[in-house]
């Protein structure tokens, strides 16, 4: 009886504890911020303006470039009294072309903000690079729209005719099966 009660108490305590963990607020102690690079396509050897906001006030952050081959600190910054910072971030010229996560790391190693970026070699970047697709650029600011892109769709007579025939045959065959069902009944 006593053993049963203690088991019940232990299970109950564990359930309460796990419930408290699950429904408590975020476990991290830092305020989460936002990183906004002027472009998500970074040039190896180039620079990019980076805006950080919504961080804690006057905290030091490490800006890291994190990839599958490891991580590299690019710069240490300190936020102002409103939790913001703006820096001109230099991308090391030897950075290998790949996708990376640009992350802001607090002093204790917690990642408090991050953004996906891609690093390309300088010679590959053209005025009509990937960022051209990221909305319409006007005066350096990205303008976006909810209007669908006016793309010229790929067309093929054979494919279209095949699809039309498929649709018609499917509907007719379905109708025939249903007619047979009525006849059977």
């Amino acid at each position: 009886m006593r053993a049963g009660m203690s088991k019940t108490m232990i299970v109950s305590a564990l359930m309460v504890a796990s419930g408290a963990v699950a429904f408590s607020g975020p476990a991290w102690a830092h305020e989460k911020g936002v990183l906004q690079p002027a472009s998500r396509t970074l040039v190896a050897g180039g620079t990019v303006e980076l805006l950080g906001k919504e961080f804690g006030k006057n905290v030091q952050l490490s800006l890291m470039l994190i990839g599958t081959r490891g991580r590299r600190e690019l710069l240490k910054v300190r936020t102002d009294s409103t939790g913001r910072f703006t820096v001109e971030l230099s991308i090391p010229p030897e950075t290998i072309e790949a996708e990376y996560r640009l992350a802001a790391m607090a002093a204790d190693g917690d990642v408090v903000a991050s953004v996906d970026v891609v690093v390309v070699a300088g010679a590959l970047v053209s005025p009509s690079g990937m960022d051209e697709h990221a909305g319409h650029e006007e005066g350096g600011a990205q303008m976006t729209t909810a209007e669908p892109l006016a793309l010229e769709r790929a067309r093929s007579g054979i494919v279209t005719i095949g699809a039309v025939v498929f649709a018609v045959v499917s509907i007719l065959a379905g109708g025939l099966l249903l007619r047979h069902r009525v006849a059977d009944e």
Partner: protein
Amino acid sequence: MLDESPTGGALRWFRTRFALDAMDYPVSARANRLDFMIGALTLVAIVVLAVTGIVLTQFYNPSPLGAHESIRYIMTTTPGVTILRDAHVWSASAALALVFAHLAAVFWRRGFRTPREGLWWTGVLLLAILFALAFTGTVLRADQEAVEALAHATAGAGYAGPLGAILTPDFTPATPLLARLYGLHVSVLPLVLLSLVALHLWLIRHLGVSAPGPASATFRSHLRPLGGFSLILVGLLAAAALSWPANLLPPGVAGSELTKPFWPFLWIYAAENLFGMSGMLVAPAVLFGFLALAPITDRQDGTSAKITRVAGVVLFVLMIAAIVYAAVAPGQSHLDMGM
């Protein structure tokens, strides 16, 4: 009389080797009506989704900066694949519309009553998985609608604390969130869906269809009309894909809220219009909470059964009204409304 022709022999061989005679189990003749086939038609739409999705995976690039470009490539370079993408989008709409219709029909005829509670609950889970697939599928487009959908989900995940961590970019720095959502969309969620469908079908086979009346027909006779309706559905999906192809918005820019979600999510959008970001959590909680509890609150005929039915009808009408309202209401920003 035994058919001794070569064709008859081949059919007999096929029937015995693949146990097709097992399909001759009795079912109610009313099960041959369309309203008892909506669930099976949902499965047909899911099969179309799977087939078209498998083709799309050969052309889609799940990297954050390659995703949008790969869809542009599909739309502008590959005529066959772009039609399959259109069919994929239309099948998603059809699957969600049909599963709602199936749910409403089963609810109305109280098909969740003992001993079919498990059947109902697996159906509710299937609805949730279909929603998850629709959400992850939207995000994979990496266009403006996708970025906004992801921003909403990430905000919601933030409110859920550590439980929502998997939906945040910081969960693992090695893999972008888009790639992880792609993994969910093409492997985890389909596997869960398949398992639940298998369980759902197994329960139908053993508990029987909830159609009233004597079991005067066989399941084999049920297959003919089902095949007919299925072919018509597939034909209509192909026709819709040809007539109204799916579009693509410009690549998403974080921080903007200009779009409305895929129509099955519009009722949540309406709740966000009214209650802010908390609507995104409360509205699904109310729907799925109600659906989960329906077999419990409707145990017996009487007041509780009537209340459950009225509540279900009110909820269904409210959802339809919310979808229509959200479709016509002007776009609204939600992320800055907070909880």
